[in-house]
């Protein structure tokens, strides 16, 4: 018999998934990129990914302890932050720097705002910006993948050190300055698709990222709006320069496959916490990110613009949300 009746507001059934499920989906989607990172960069990659994931989770646990809040490590969002942070770090970064970065990402990037769902900036990108400011040298030193010979001539653009200047985006920066030929850089396209180039851990292999992104879209963990907006706007924007001067500016396709653009479009800009809610807002946000990335890459001083582009658009998210207020199905008036 009925000893106890539960009373609650309707509905009385719910879909069987959770925040944890969403985070787990993101982790699964990042597996191809992690595998490729480990394949190309070997032991340092594994060390970095594990260090970041574990220290992010540990920081979350510690923060909850200090705040006297229920433990939230279980929702896996800290692990996702850790993995994304690791994948956007250079492979040769010492593990202790990664620990500092992870602690910053969770403690300052997320928990001081109130924890999951309350942060203004993407924690991984905030932390990366912090690391770039604090450890500038370490954060811009690139090792080449273990699978290719570092002395291969194509990897040594005019007068540059093959070890420290190995990313395609660095070359394209050189090309803009007239120190390299954009056409030669464009030949790296295939390498950026497979990932056999220098760069951040998880950002080198376009194919692995696309695979993960396809999984997220298939599972409807993310909607297509932000990735499409980022990629199309970046492509169109980069194409303007390319067609103006193909010798100085690399092809827009390389802008998409090279550097962190795909990582950004599929995994970073789609972070729901720091992106706008309404679809119209998602388009504005995505277009803004795509344009800013290209603008920073081409006009700015940095070869890569993902981090600052995302942070800038994160800051604009509340404004975009307010600007794109939804109109109810029956029109605006209400009685």
């Amino acid at each position, binding site marked *: 018999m009925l000893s106890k009746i539960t009373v609650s*507001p309707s509905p009385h059934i719910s879909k069987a998934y959770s925040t944890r499920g969403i985070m787990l989906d993101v982790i699964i989607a990042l597996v191809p990129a992690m595998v490729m990172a480990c394949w190309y960069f070997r032991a340092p990659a594994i060390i970095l990914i594990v260090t970041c994931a574990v220290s992010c989770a540990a920081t979350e646990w510690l923060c909850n302890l200090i705040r006297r809040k229920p433990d939230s490590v279980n929702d896996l969002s800290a692990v996702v932050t850790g993995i994304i942070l690791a994948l956007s770090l250079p492979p040769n970064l010492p593990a202790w720097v990664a620990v500092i970065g992870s602690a910053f990402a969770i403690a300052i990037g997320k928990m001081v705002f109130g924890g999951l769902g309350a942060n203004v900036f993407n924690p991984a990108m905030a932390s990366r910006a912090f690391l770039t400011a604090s450890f500038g040298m370490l954060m811009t030193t690139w090792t080449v993948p273990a699978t290719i010979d570092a002395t291969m001539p194509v990897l040594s653009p005019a007068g540059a050190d093959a070890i420290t200047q190995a990313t395609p985006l660095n070359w394209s920066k050189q090309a803009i300055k007239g120190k390299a030929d954009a056409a030669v850089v464009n030949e790296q396209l295939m390498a950026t698709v497979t990932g056999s180039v220098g760069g951040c851990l998880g950002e080198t292999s376009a194919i692995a990222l696309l695979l993960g992104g396809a999984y997220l879209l298939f599972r409807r963990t993310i909607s297509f709006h932000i990735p499409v907006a980022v990629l199309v706007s970046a492509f169109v924007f980069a194409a303007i320069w390319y067609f103006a001067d193909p010798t100085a500016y690399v092809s827009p396709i390389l802008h998409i496959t090279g550097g962190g653009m795909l990582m950004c479009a599929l995994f970073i800009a789609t972070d729901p916490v720091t992106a706008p809610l309404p679809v119209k807002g998602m388009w504005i946000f995505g277009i803004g990110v795509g344009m800013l990335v290209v603008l920073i890459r081409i006009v700015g001083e940095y070869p890569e613009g993902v981090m600052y582009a995302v942070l800038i658009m994160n800051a604009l998210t509340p404004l975009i949300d307010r600007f794109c207020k939804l109109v109810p199905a029956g029109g605006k008036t209400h009685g």
Partner: protein
Amino acid sequence: MHPPENKLTEDSQIQQMPNPKLVSVLLGQHIGAVCSSMVQKKDKVQFGQQIGQAEGFVSAPVHSPVDGVVRDIALQSHPVLGREMAVIIDVDAESSIKPLPNGQFTADFDETAFSDKQIRDAVRQAGIVGMGGAGFPTQVKLEPNPQTPKEVLIINGCECEPFITGDYRMMMEWTYQVIAGIKLACRGAGCPTVRIGIEENKPEAIARMAELLKQCSGAGNMEVVPLKTKYPQGGERQLIKAVWGKQVPTGGIPPMIGVVVLNVATCAAIADAVVNNAPLTHRVVTVTGGAIANPGNYYVPIGTSVQDLIDHCGGLTENAAKVVMGGPMMGLAIADLSTPITKASGAITFLTEETITKAKYERRQTACIRCGRCLTVCPEHLNATRIAHAVKSDLLDVAQNYHMTACIECGCCSYICPANIELTGYIKTGKILLARAKKRMPK
């Protein structure tokens, strides 16, 4: 959105429920003014006798479903209002029992034998209200409106709520009575056309209604419209949009755009009321859910308690955890099993512990991660998370800025929310707080 349909009682024929020993006929079973009692303690009442007087234009009288003696006129648990006055009747052992429809309606039913005025009067006197759940007095909907002529009568046969099958069974078994009711309602309201919206997950109902309509005389203006199966397709505003392509304005009601919407069960009641002068004393109730021994569709005296229905249906299972008046998406969980069936209760769903409880971790409400799923599923294009958080922070003006009162409370946002936030619950609370603030509702 597609919550699991769980139509357990799809193939259960509508069965008669015997009279219980006691009925509690609530005096407020509809939207609008509560009735005043016309009987006193110890009065003898007869089956069909009016016992509650309608107060005002938007109101509906209530009638006794049994022969018996008034035990008391007292407060009784009410599924919507919490507590409300009810006429409590001890049922005579030899009380007459309202039989199931006996097939008196056929294809040649001629509604022109009744004038539109006659129809509206009969509907008012029978105390018919919207039987789909809201309980809005039907004669008010039928009343002519000189400003906006009525364009169409839309019959709601969607039954998009999971578990509920009463309307489906009525369309299958009482088809001619339902069609007769539609014809009468159409004449009573003066609508030139009729559209019957049925979801595609009920192909037999679509086929049967369409086929029998063809055989009926004077049904040339009537048409069955198969609708995509999705929740909440049967929401009045969603139904009108899907069937007639028109959008009811925010804060508005269907008459503003010349549309009348009636539920299948209401139509069956109209036929009974107009032709047989029978007041609304019984209704089809789907007794369903995983926690009841014998689920089924029953023709129940209005005023029967939930406990009596449980006893009639073989009792509850061990793991029963929640009793819901209505379906699992919009129904109201009740705390008192003596709560009586009202004119608007189309179903009672008994949910098991397993159904209402997900994994232990997931049960806890977690932080909103702004995933936006509540925006994607909202049929009214509202920002549920913003409204809910505004209500939580006691910022009713902000909530209203996001059109809180446009919410139809379908429950999609809460259903989909991965953080287990009771978004619909917050919005409902916000609406009540707002109404109180505007002093529309007593504290």
